[in-house]
């Protein structure tokens, strides 16, 4: 098991390396210049600008700059934000927990919706329940998150006045009131993301269960007198989950897309909204770092999916 994890980690390295190369190439190919401000400032003579460029190595060839950028990234020196003058690493670590909390709860909600509904509609395909569930799933994943978010704000905050529509990290209350405030403000963003995920996953679960349900071993399980519940949970769902895990892993980049948008709508202080505000403020080091962090998260979650895969399907041996 541990050898398998190590081997997977080793395979991860070239992928992260490739991602860093892609990101750096985009940055290097881009027109634009971090010292553009100085160029338009009449108080700065051109020689000073040239010296600064040479000092920061901007005139070196691209491969040299790439190696230098990569080594400092590996050493943990990610530079500092042009705007807030804070270390990029500190800035991202401040924001990351909030993002992961909202994303994680949304994903959990999605699974809690998708697993029972998907399984149940596959057990009775083309029944009324199945048709209603499939229709709702279709509507759910055709509704873009930015629109559901706005509609939720319109209904639950502005019309009914039940929930706050601005997410605050600094809540003054203590004790259970603090927990209550946190839960209340998280309901809408988590619901928007979770319902979208749930709709997508329901379709995956349904078709995966349908693939399994007619196989002989399920009939065998029934024939030997196992109750319907035990058959479904232990034999059908467990095996149906194997392709679902892969699909969930493939969905992860899409989840981040939803996260950036929900964070923007509900003003959640996570890394998604940090990305948008950095782009609007031309804060290149932060933008690069966040894109890189997002890519690394995708790779890490793919690894988790691979490990889960092995646990669900013992035929895949850890070697």
């Amino acid at each position: 098991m541990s050898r398998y994890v190590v081997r997977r980690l080793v395979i991860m390295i070239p992928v992260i390396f490739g991602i860093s190369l892609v990101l750096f190439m985009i940055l290097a190919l881009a027109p634009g210049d971090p010292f553009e401000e100085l160029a338009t400032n009449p108080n700065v003579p051109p020689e000073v600008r040239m010296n600064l460029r040479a000092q920061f190595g901007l005139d070196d060839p691209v491969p040299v700059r790439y190696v230098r950028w990569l080594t400092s990234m590996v050493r943990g020196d990610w530079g500092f934000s042009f705007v807030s003058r804070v270390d990029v690493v500190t800035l991202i670590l401040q924001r990351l927990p909030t993002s992961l909390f909202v994303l994680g709860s949304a994903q959990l909600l999605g699974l809690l919706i998708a697993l029972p509904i998907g399984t149940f509609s596959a057990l009775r395909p083309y029944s009324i329940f199945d048709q209603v569930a499939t229709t709702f799933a279709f509507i759910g994943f055709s509704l873009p998150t930015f629109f559901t978010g706005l509609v939720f704000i319109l209904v639950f905050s502005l019309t009914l006045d039940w929930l706050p529509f601005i997410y605050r990290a600094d809540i003054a209350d203590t004790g259970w009131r603090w927990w209550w405030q946190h839960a209340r403000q998280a309901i809408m963003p988590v619901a928007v993301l979770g319902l979208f995920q749930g709709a997508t996953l329901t379709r995956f679960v349904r078709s995966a269960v349908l693939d399994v349900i007619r196989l002989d071993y399920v009939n065998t399980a029934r024939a030997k007198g196992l109750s319907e519940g035990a058959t479904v949970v232990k034999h059908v769902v467990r095996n149906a989950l194997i392709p679902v895990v892969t699909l969930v892993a493939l969905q992860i980049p899409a989840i981040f897309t939803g996260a950036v948008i929900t964070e923007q709508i509900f003003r959640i202080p996570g890394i998604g909204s940090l990305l948008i505000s950095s782009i609007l403020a031309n804060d290149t080091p932060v933008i690069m770092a966040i894109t890189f962090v997002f890519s690394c998260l995708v790779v890490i979650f793919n690894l988790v999916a691979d490990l889960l895969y092995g646990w669900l399907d013992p035929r895949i041996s850890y070697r």
Partner: protein
Amino acid sequence: MSIATAPAPSLLARASARPSLWREATRRFRRHRLAMVGFVILLSMVMAVVVGPFVYRVPIDEIDFRAKLKGPSRAHPLGTDDLGQDLLARMLYGGRISLAVGVAAMLISITIGTTVGAMAGQLGGAVDHTLMRLTDLFLSLPQLPLLLLIVYLFRDALKKVLGPEAGIFVMIVAVIAGLRWMPVARLVRAQFLSLREKEFVEAARSLGAPTLRQVVRHILPNALGPVIVAGSLDVAAAIIAESSLSFLGLGFPPDIPTWGRILYDAKDNLDFAPHWALFPGTAIFLTVLSINYIGDGLRDALDPRKVLGHK
């Protein structure tokens, strides 16, 4: 001579008597009721944005402060925005761009995906390996953050070269397509791997058909079904991607009111002008829903093996 030509007419007659593959597919598509409903809705949307601006001749940028933030009325069927501009006119105009982005991005991503998949599947070996690693790499890139990064870095340069409207259009289409071709490439490769070993391809090969002819005439037409399905879903995904970008304020500028851009402008006025956000949002939703149902219908029509043993 006469021996060689004799059986041909009867073969032809039999071929035309049997319903053709496409007619059969159309028949199956028509039986999918929701797909037909989606098709009708989408068609009327397309007609509306193509013909609409010629019929409904209200300018999209006529500012009228006396009529600002008004709900639907006779003068403004869908109401007005904060500058008193007519929303129906803006949505008809913006819808053209939203739909055009979707279709253009789909065409490009399918072309790239099919080319990559065909090369990987047909040539095999090192080419296959390299192309598939590249596909995996692209699959693990987070789409929206990267889109935002590229838009941020290249926006001004392209604006200078191609002008504000065309520059942003080209960039957004290229970037969306460049990040969406991977599923098609995988699909096409898988199809190629199984099709190139089939008897009819072997027959073509043994008759001396060069590789290109084998691919273009024999393998590709048979691999097209799933590609069409994936392509239809890609249109929806591209429309959502463009709307997301515009919704974040990083897509089209305010003078090009795509549906996502109208939503972005509307989102801070939700409390006094909800109609401003609801109309473009519904338009995006209906379009995407129709396209997804059409994709579902196409899957039933073109990929009969996927249909359950039912009916």
